[in-house]
């Protein structure tokens, strides 16, 4: 990585990418779900960002016409079953997050990577706050401030997510090569 997108002017808006296929979006979402299902424990689990949320947010901001509420909601239900949490808490949180992503997509993509992080962080925090609120209403107790660390690591991983998800969308320098 010679020029980090974290510093300096973002070139992403000028870069011409290949059109995104719905199949690619589905594949990345499933991959994110699988990373979320990794059997982690201890502090690694505490620090682990919610990759499904991150990838959903990414597509919500960058391809807001190709992704809607339904995938977010269904993946939320999947996360609820996988985590054994209340049925619908992630679905609700992801739906609200998707709303924020689609509503803000023009604004966020105007900014450089550093400022995008500042947009992503509050969205992820609001998502976690919704989960917290739902659990609080259902009689759960506050697990501790470390709970919010996963939003911070998620926001910090935003540039990496951007780079990674864009790789298959880059145009080959020589189209005849393929």
């Amino acid at each position, binding site marked *: 990585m010679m020029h980090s997108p974290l510093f300096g002017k973002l070139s992403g808006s000028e870069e011409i990418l290949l059109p995104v296929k719905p199949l690619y979006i589905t594949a990345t979402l499933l991959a994110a779900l699988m990373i979320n*299902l990794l059997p982690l*424990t201890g502090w690694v689990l505490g620090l682990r960002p919610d990759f499904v949320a991150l990838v959903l947010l990414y597509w919500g901001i960058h391809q807001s016409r190709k992704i809607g509420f339904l995938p977010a909601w269904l993946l939320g239900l999947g996360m609820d079953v996988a985590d*054994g949490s209340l049925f*619908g808490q992630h679905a609700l949180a992801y739906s609200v997050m998707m709303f924020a992503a689609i509503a803000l997509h023009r604004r966020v993509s105007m900014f450089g990577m550093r400022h995008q992080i500042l947009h992503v962080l509050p969205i992820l925090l609001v998502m976690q706050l919704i989960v917290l609120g739902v659990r609080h209403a259902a009689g759960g107790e506050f697990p501790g401030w470390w709970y919010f660390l996963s939003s911070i690591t998620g926001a910090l991983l935003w540039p990496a997510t951007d780079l990674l998800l864009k790789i298959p969308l880059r145009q080959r320098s020589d189209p005849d090569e393929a």
Partner: protein
Amino acid sequence: MEYTPPPFFRRGPSLLARLGFFTLLSLILLYADARFHYMEGMRKVIAVVLYPLQELADAPGQAASRIGNFFVSQSYLQRENDRLSHENFLHAGQLQSQQALVAENQHLRQLLEMQERAEQTSTVAEILYVGRDPFSRKVIVDKGSSQGIEEGAAVVDDTGLIGQVIRAFPWTAEVALISDREQVVPVQVVRNGLRAAVFGIGYDGALDLRFMPINADVENGDVLVTSGIDGVYPTGLPVAVVSNIERNAAYPFAKITCTPAAGPNRNRQVLVMSRLAPLPDYPVAPEVKKGKARKARKGG
């Protein structure tokens, strides 16, 4: 921020309407799950769909542990073998006397015309992963309802009680640990038979023995075993050892902290016990006249 397309580019209902729809749907599901537990069937369907993905996600870790097992040193195996054969020897002695005791117990129960104790079967299961929900303490094991695991079954390891199966999916099961905040285990002090309840406090390594009066006969080092009066846990499983007692006259109850006897961090293998035979029904209260019954309820 509000993005309204011109009328010739209609794209379905507005963003807010869609948000409202999905929020409402989620809230209905949440309410139905939290209050009435209506969603268990749907959970099972989704769990089956997710199962291959979960297996795939677990594969690297399991492969790593298998490779790790392959490279275990000779001396370690030798030492473990020595220890196990020693333990086996000790247990064999205990088992011999236990057989005599079981026969004697059965005989005495027959003499006293008491109910026979049901034989309990158990299934060995392996912990797949620790629950990811930060609001509860769970582990997920690799046996489910298709292997005969039922909801409510007690889960133990070689040293004592770990928890209870709260959801049995076809091939996996969720086990709530006794350290979960919502788990309560009815226990008995081995030394004097005093009954109490142990509460989880939300993290490993400590349990709370609540609602014991200040002068209760509990000492440091007392062993607590399940009392079995709840009809969920079998009698006599080690649960915890009392580790700290604070008796402050300002409070009605003593603050008693215990160290759990077992824990999911000790080893991967656990034993899922079968459900206990259902308890006999509550005795029916003798019929009394309405007026009297009301009075009695008031008094009680």
